[in-house]
């Protein structure tokens, strides 16, 4: 079989110019679907990213009573460290270190001059391998005589986890529905293209053009529509991303916003592939139903 890309591409564009309204509808739906998918994925990724950052920070702070003997502090630390299935790191912060930190954070403010002596407790800062385990760890530590109080960002972490889960699901479901609509629209556009060229197709079959020679232009047309839809979605998404990032940075200067560019490229790549798949599936559907070779 001879494969002449130029012939196929020429045929695809010809057919597009004939059925451009339905083709535009198909492309727009692909764009919409991938935009929704991309947006929710972007949000999920970003939140995930925050979580990874916060995970690396402290999740549980255990404040110790004053006057606990050093050996008890040591043995408590070893015990916590021995839970190494869940615990990533335990850092001891002495009363002096705590004061140092406070001084650093409020450098230049005269608030510190009001503090007399050192009212700050010593503490353990525990970071976890899996933030979802925080509850369990807290339960294990509760009631110990050495411990004055325990603080952990349970709600924040849980909310973040739930939020990303939800963002993913909402994104996947919406995007899935839209992708299905896009697929049907592409199939319809291809059906019209097949119909417009039915005489040529009949003659091609008659003179023995190979099945793939007949199918290729239509498959290509669907793929191009999917691809164009994906590219538009990616362009819009990058604009949205830039706008959001700017605003978030301004509002929440301390948060590690944004995505590592690697994830962003992965997302872009995934959207391109998704666009191509929607296009190919749409054409395949039309070819199966309307092009018997």
């Amino acid at each position: 079989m001879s494969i002449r890309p130029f012939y196929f591409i020429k045929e695809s564009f010809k057919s597009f110019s004939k059925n451009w309204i339905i083709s535009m509808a198909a492309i727009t739906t692909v764009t919409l679907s991938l935009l929704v998918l991309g947006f929710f994925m972007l949000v999920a990724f970003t939140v995930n990213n925050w979580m990874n950052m916060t995970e690396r920070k402290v999740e549980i702070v255990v404040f110790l009573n004053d006057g606990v003997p050093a050996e008890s502090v040591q043995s408590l630390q070893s015990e916590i460290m021995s839970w190494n299935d869940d615990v990533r790191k335990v850092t001891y912060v002495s009363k002096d270190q705590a004061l140092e930190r406070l001084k650093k954070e409020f450098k230049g403010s005269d608030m510190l001059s009001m503090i007399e002596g050192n009212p700050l407790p010593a503490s353990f800062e525990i970071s976890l391998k899996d933030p979802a385990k925080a509850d369990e760890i807290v339960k294990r530590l509760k009631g110990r005589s050495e411990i004055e109080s325990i603080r952990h960002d349970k709600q924040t972490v849980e909310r973040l986890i739930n939020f990303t889960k939800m963002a993913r699901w909402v994104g996947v479901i919406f995007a899935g529905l839209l992708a299905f609509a896009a697929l049907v629209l592409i199939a319809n556009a291809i059906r019209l293209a097949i119909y417009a060229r039915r005489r040529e197709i009949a003659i091609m079959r008659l003179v023995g053009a190979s099945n793939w020679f007949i199918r290729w232009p239509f498959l290509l047309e669907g793929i191009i529509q999917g691809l164009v839809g994906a590219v538009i979605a990616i362009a819009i998404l990058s604009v949205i991303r830039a706008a959001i990032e700017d605003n978030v940075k301004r509002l929440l200067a301390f948060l590690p916003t944004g995505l590592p560019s690697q994830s962003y490229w992965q997302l872009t790549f995934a959207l391109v592939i998704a666009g191509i798949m929607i296009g190919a599936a749409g054409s395949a559907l039309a070819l199966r139903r309307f092009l018997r070779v």
Partner: protein
Amino acid sequence: MIKINNVTMKYKGAHSPAIKDINVDIDRGEFVFLVGPSGCGKSTFIRLLIRELIPTKGKIFIAGHDIANMRRGKVPQLRRNIGCVFQDYKLLPNKTAYENVAFALDVIGKPNRIIRAQVPEVLRLVGLEGKSESYPDELSGGEQQRVSIARAFVNRPAIILADEPTGNLDPATSGDIMSLFNKINRTGTTVLVATHDREMVDNMRKRVLALEGGTLIRDQQRGVYGYEE
């Protein structure tokens, strides 16, 4: 060249078969008429030979290949070896005579060099050398049918099948078209023409296969359209 063994073809949902238990052998280089009244199964017969239809029973061999059990992917190769001509010409209206013929070579992947050599040659053969840039609607019915014959023959198939090729033409033009088939036949091509043009068949004295209600009722060398009437 064409061997039809006990072939029966029943359309889906039809009460009786359109082709009933037919046996025919056609040798390389033969000229054969397929005659019979409208609805007797001539078109069905031809569509079976290009594997547009698959027989319900029996076997069909073309150049030794069992086409009823042929893989789908092999069908294009079969069709490249069979040229088809129809009553309604089936030309593409937005292409010139030259382009219509070239199209047939183009879509089976023939290089341009071959297309540029073969298309003018076949147009000359069918007597259209001055008309290659004309569009179908600028050509008479006879000329359009010549373009369609040129397209069927340009790839030098071993077999030409024609389904009522003169059905839309006046008797004089029909005669010209039949001579053209004769000329093609003399190059060694096997030709099968389905027709109910009695005069033509009687004049040419070729082998005649007569169908009636899907049954082969007569197979006669140097035959005529019908004995009676």
